[in-house]
């Protein structure tokens, strides 16, 4: 708990909700009759409404990107080190919007919501939404907030994919896209990891075909395994070694299958704490959206053709030790942007911390973001 809210924090924030009553046609062919998005905003929209920044969250993120909900909160929002007064995305100048994605489990319409057609929770009946669907749902939120064009859209991992999709689907509405630790589509290995995670959840005895809410249980073991697996892939071998090595929890071997090594204890902790805050159906859905993401598919499988639609300027960032979304994947995006003659800058940040680096306060990384956003600011300042 912060005894006092730091001066460079956005401070106490309250989420807001908007109900969209117009049906939303989805990629899968189904339509949502209506939907709610929960979102947070930080800073002030200027009179010209040209200082807005959209933050897109990754697989397990939500709308609470910065600040605190209550003074007693132990932790600030998930990207608090990056968003706030004087921070790289400076809320003294930018109006920052962060919604929880459709299909999420933090307040936006998703598997936990009541399906108006049946009167019970959607559960497994919630349609699989794609990155394009998210972009459409977010575009309507922009309309509601009076934002015709975003000064920038910023996201890491799955969030970076949304930034890229936005720039292709709504070229006139995105002036800068910052695509961090992302890829233009998942590698085979990435889909494979996602499938193991899904199987862990779906084969849990408490899964009940996704209707576990009705049985008053959660597939906690499966979700925990999914998270443990994911967590290993978000870090690098080097950082795991540096943090845990082969350290034994009890200082000696116990010749059993309970926790022996500290890394086991850490992973179990990560897994169990995730179960308390995340919904298994949302996890399935988010991993599927990741698998399906492929903006080139609608442009003859040619990424260059896809990004030729874009008018935004791009910042692409990768991290040297990220093997889940490796620098090579970011370079594919850069290459397409170069072929398409778009404005793009690219930097690979030296980091031992793996995919998770995009959430961390790495000085050079934050210097890049800060400098880039200061440059954006110069475009709307009179």
């Amino acid at each position, binding site marked *: 708990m912060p005894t006092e809210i730091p001066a460079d924090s956005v401070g106490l924030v309250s989420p807001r909700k908007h109900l969209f009553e117009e049906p939303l046609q989805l990629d899968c062919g189904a339509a949502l009759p209506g939907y709610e998005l929960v979102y947070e905003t930080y800073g002030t929209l200027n009179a010209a409404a040209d200082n807005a920044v959209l933050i897109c969250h990754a697989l397990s993120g939500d709308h609470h990107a910065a600040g605190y909900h209550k003074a007693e909160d132990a932790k600030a929002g998930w990207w608090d080190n990056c968003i706030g007064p004087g921070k790289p995305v400076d809320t003294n100048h930018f109006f920052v919007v962060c919604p929880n994605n459709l299909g999420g489990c933090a307040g936006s319409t998703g598997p936990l919501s009541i399906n108006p057609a049946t009167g019970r929770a959607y559960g497994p009946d919630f349609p699989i939404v794609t990155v394009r669907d998210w972009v459409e749902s977010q575009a309507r939120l922009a309309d509601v907030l009076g934002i015709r064009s975003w000064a920038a859209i910023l996201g890491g991992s799955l969030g970076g994919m949304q930034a890229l999709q936005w720039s292709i689907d709504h070229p006139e509405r995105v002036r800068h896209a910052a695509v961090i630790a992302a890829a233009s589509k998942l590698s085979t290995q990435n889909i494979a990891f996602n499938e193991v995670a899904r199987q862990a959840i779906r084969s849990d005895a408490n899964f009940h075909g996704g209707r576990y809410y009705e049985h008053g249980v959660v597939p906690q073991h499966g979700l925990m395994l999914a998270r443990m697996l994911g967590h290993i892939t978000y870090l690098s071998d080097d950082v795991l070694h540096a943090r845990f090595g082969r350290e034994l929890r009890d200082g000696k071997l116990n010749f059993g299958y309970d926790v022996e090594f500290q890394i086991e204890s850490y992973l179990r902790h990560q897994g169990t704490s995730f179960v308390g805050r995340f919904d298994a159906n949302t996890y399935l859905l988010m991993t599927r959206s990741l698998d399906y993401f492929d903006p080139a598919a609608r442009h003859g499988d040619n990424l260059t053709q896809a990004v030729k639609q874009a008018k935004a300027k791009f*910042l692409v960032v990768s991290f040297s030790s990220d093997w889940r979304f490796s620098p090579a994947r970011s*370079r594919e995006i*850069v*290459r397409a942007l*170069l*072929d398409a003659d778009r*404005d*793009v*800058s*690219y*930097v*690979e*940040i*030296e980091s031992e911390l793996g995919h998770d680096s995009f959430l961390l306060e790495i000085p*050079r990384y934050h*210097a*890049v973001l800060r*400098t*880039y956003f*200061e*440059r954006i600011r110069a475009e709307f300042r009179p």
Partner: protein
Amino acid sequence: MSLRQDQALIAEWIAPGSRVLDLGCGDGALLVELRRRLNVSGYGIEIDRENIVRCLEAGVNVIHGNLDQGLQDFDDDSFDYVIMTQTLQAMRYPHLVIREMLRVGREGIVTFPNFGHWKCRLQLLTGQMPVTRHLPSTWYDTANIHMCTIRDFEALCATERVEVLERAAVDSEHRAGFAMRFLPNLLAEIAIYRFRRKTVL
């Protein structure tokens, strides 16, 4: 931003509105000036992350990359000019870099410190590797692993079937052009070349 003398000379050779790739672009000063004066568009490639931040500050498109790994992210003939200032001598394989420059660009422009300059020759005569204003590092602590003279460079151009379109030089008196007219390989501290692929008849 102010330009080094070799960069200022290059700016005079570039056609307005052209598309430029600057290899080892540093803080982006040349690209900023070319954009401001000549409405030139393009990208810089830079390996140093501190310099990349300076480029972002200047609003220059900069791509993090190692030139020794080639220009595989760039298509054939995608630039009017590919420029490399004061970097050729630090490349692992300078001749391959020149090939890559002329693959992705219509024309190439390089500048390099001339190892044939009389001060270098004089120091070599004393039996030691030269340390000069343009080559301030000791032999064991220098990025310049492939020094060459103006004559060497022209010989490489001949071997690689590269046609020299324009030459200039900066001498120790900061005079541009003078050295190229009069004993260039002895008087030029910095050599500047514009070149293209020789057309095969």
